[in-house]
């Protein structure tokens, strides 16, 4: 898409601006839809219907109405807040999660920036979210918010390690940090997904499969924690910390936090899908392949994991801080190391 | 133990500190004790092997009128499964009672409530504050001579 646009417009800067806006075309409608979906999913899991009135069919316009409400709301800043940090925090959080979309390939034809260190970039840039959350917690000048922020920082930093190690498994197999390359490596159908050992020979697949499977699960669990979703939602644990770091936010700034959370949910789902489930490649080889179908496959795989995240949220209780740390340091990290080691041995042999 | 046995035992141990006792003709048999002796009586009631009243069901303040306040202790024994009511009368002029919260920990909040509502002070209470009403509330509303103030902190009290 990039060369095409360049040829069409003849201007690099406009091209990059347009390229940067493309994911937004997906993220914003997606967030509106995902909020609605979350309400419907939770409602149907809980034996009720959820929003049914706004817009007619199954309350499809509910989130749009909510956003309109949030835009009109007064922006309340606590008198004792650190005004600058309080103002900046939601933007930093959203930028952090949106920037991750830059190197995620939506299809064979579109990736915001085909960096050769794409994965590394994602890991780095998504840490920006922590900074935003800390700013929000500190800037609100509210003890509960501060608790949420501190918890969040501890949690996200702890879970970066198993995440990065699990990502490393895919990187070792493909030998590339570019997400486009990793996706192409898995082209050719379901059997080539890294989840099932990648396009190796049959005995090799069986040797690899336990490691890739485990690292995929580690990646998914850790990404739940990185997006602050239940059962790891302790930074915004409603029953403990009121609303955690965004207690003192209202109106549009609150909406930005919300948008960032949902964008993040999709980002981590997309990364999991790209690394282990073949990204935009068709699960049936060349059947239904190609760039247009690629978008479809990529989005469906991502949305599937978004749905799983919702499903977990409405099923499980919340962990406690120490248990959360225990899982990260004593369960996920050692297992992730074992996976890296196992795959490493395989590759050496 | 029957209430009669309990009162007899109390009389034997406490002597003339037992002011009054009524077993028959009342819904709940009770013993009335001199206010100063309540802590001794409480310890006796709890520690005596045959009585062993380890469960303070209820502690209520009462305004008996004519300048007399009262505290009523409803006791139960989890081991022996018997009950007794202990009452004390205190003059409103000098409403001090020894606290029994060291004997039954559950008396803590009940005593604070009785203080809040009736204004008797429980000497030796670990945390002698009002509990239900605001710290600065004037007076003790469950006393029969209590008049609802017209203003509270400058706000008019309705009706």
């Amino acid at each position, binding site marked *: 898409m990039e060369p095409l646009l360049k040829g069409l417009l003849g201007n690099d800067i406009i091209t990059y601006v347009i390229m940067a806006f493309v994911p937004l075309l997906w993220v914003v409608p997606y967030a509106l839809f995902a909020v609605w979906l979350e309400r419907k999913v939770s409602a149907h899991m809980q034996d009720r219907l959820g929003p049914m009135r706004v817009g007619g069919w199954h309350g499809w316009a509910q989130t749009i109405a909510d956003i309109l409400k949030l835009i009109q709301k007064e922006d309340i800043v606590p008198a004792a807040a650190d005004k600058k940090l309080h103002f900046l925090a939601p933007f930093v959080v959203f930028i952090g999660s949106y920037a991750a979309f830059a190197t995620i390939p939506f299809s064979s034809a579109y990736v915001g920036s085909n960096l050769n260190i794409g994965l590394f970039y994602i890991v780095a840039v998504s840490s920006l979210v922590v900074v935003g959350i800390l700013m929000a917690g500190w800037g609100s000048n509210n003890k509960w918010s501060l608790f949420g922020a501190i918890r969040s920082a501890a949690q996200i930093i702890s879970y970066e390690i198993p995440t990065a190690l699990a990502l490393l498994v895919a990187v070792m197999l493909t030998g590339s940090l570019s997400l486009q390359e990793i996706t192409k490596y898995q082209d050719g159908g379901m059997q080539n997904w890294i989840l099932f050992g990648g396009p190796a020979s049959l005995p090799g697949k069986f040797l690899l499969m336990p490691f890739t499977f485990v690292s995929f699960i580690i990646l998914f669990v850790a990404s739940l924690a990185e997006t602050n979703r239940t059962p790891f939602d302790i930074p915004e644990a409603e029953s403990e910390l009121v609303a955690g770091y965004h207690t003192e936010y209202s109106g549009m700034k609150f909406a930005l936090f919300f948008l960032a959370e949902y964008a993040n949910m999709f980002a981590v789902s997309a990364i999991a899908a790209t690394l282990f489930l073949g990204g935009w490649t068709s699960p049936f080889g060349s059947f239904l392949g190609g760039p247009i179908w690629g978008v479809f496959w990529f989005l469906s795989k991502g949305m599937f994991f978004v749905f799983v995240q919702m499903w977990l949220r409405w099923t499980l209780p919340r962990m406690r801080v120490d248990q959360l740390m225990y899982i990260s340091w004593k369960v996920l990290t050692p297992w992730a190391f074992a996976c890296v080691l196992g795959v490493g041995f395989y590759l050496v042999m | 133990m029957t209430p009669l046995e309990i009162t007899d035992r109390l009389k034997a141990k406490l002597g003339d500190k037992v002011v009054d006792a009524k077993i028959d003709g009342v819904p709940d048999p009770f013993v009335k004790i001199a206010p100063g002796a309540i802590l001794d009586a409480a310890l006796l009631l709890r520690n005596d092997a045959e009585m062993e009243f380890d469960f303070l*069901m*209820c502690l209520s303040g009462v305004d008996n009128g004519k300048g007399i306040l009262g505290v009523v202790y409803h006791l139960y024994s989890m081991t022996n499964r018997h009950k007794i009511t202990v009452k004390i009368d205190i003059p409103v002029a000098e409403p001090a009672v020894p606290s029994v919260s060291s004997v039954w*920990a*559950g008396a803590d909040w009940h005593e604070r409530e009785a203080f809040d509502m009736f204004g008797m002070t429980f000497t030796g209470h670990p945390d002698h504050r009002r509990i239900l009403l605001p710290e600065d509330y004037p007076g003790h509303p469950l006393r029969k001579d209590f008049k609802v103030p017209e203003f509270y902190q400058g706000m008019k009290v309705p009706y």
Partner: protein
Amino acid sequence: MNDLLTHPLKTSTGRTIRSEEMIINMGPQHPSTHGVLRLEIVVDGEIVVDVIPHVGYLHRCFEKHCESMTNYQQVIPYCDRLDYIASMNMDWAYCLAAEKLLAIQVPERVQYIRVIMAELQRIASHLIALGTYGLDVGAFTPFLFMFRDRERILDLFEMTCGARLLYNYIWIGGVSHDLPPGFVDKAKAFCKYFRPNIKEFNDLLTYNEIFIKRTANVGVLPKDVAIAYACSGPMLRGSGVSFDLRKDDPYSIYDRFEWSVPVGKGEVGTIGDCWDRYMVRMREMTESLNILEQALAQIPDGDVASAIPKRIRPNAGDAYVRSESPRGEIGFYIVSDGSGTPYRVKARSPAFVNLSVTPEICRGSMIADLVAIVGSVDIVLGEVDR
């Protein structure tokens, strides 16, 4: 955990890094204090060093109101509002005390109706307690499942007396209306419908690994502390004391039914932890169903209004009567001076007494545990503050 306080950290230049405890306010407006309870908590990081509960935000002068009524009957609507999620039990407790003062016997049918209502109410109340407990530890879904079933009980109540929350149904000497036609069948159908659902709740929440991790060994209330603080109800039984007033100090006709008293056994942790208290409530619902089914099968025909006195003037005297509400021992101490209005009414509310033990069992736990502990005490602020 207090290492930082006893051995302060030093910077590279030898300066001491200041670390101190933080005081935070939980409530009166907080999602998990179940009303307007305020907890002043002293924390060292995430560790709770001390808890000071402040109650009284919902004080409505119940006792003062009782003294200024024109007769005994008028107190009952106020009793409804004490424990507003178990109003039937509150009404019944007050009526028991008044009936003891008046020394009247209520008809057989009334006894049965009262037992049926009280047990239905107990299930409804426990459903709220367990559901909101799920909310406290972060599980949202069980809450709505339980509300779905509670709704059916409220429908039964609505059918009986027209109200869904504050019933004013049990009167001194009787009940306000006889059961409507078809009630017994509907109640039986409810029992049949509800019994399998308890298993569903267990599958969904009780034996969930995370739920057990969050509640086992948390907020352990030892037996002797529970008795010293006069805790009652599931709080006491969760600590392993088999004490239920319906069994051990029977009132009304509870001695006619066959059922057992569930106690905490420390199945997944220590005896007296939050999970035990939770589980006692869960099992009590089954026992209540047992009582209900027997009562519905045995209920005789008869008159319900014959014993309602026209004019209530008890002799001078006082009576303390206790009964088992879903939260524990609800006692009413009524002093009569021989006139038509109560001279003094004291409600010994179980939640008030149970709450007073929380500082004792919260120390040293984490903030998340504090929420779990307060939830497991199952307080209703209407009753704590009266």
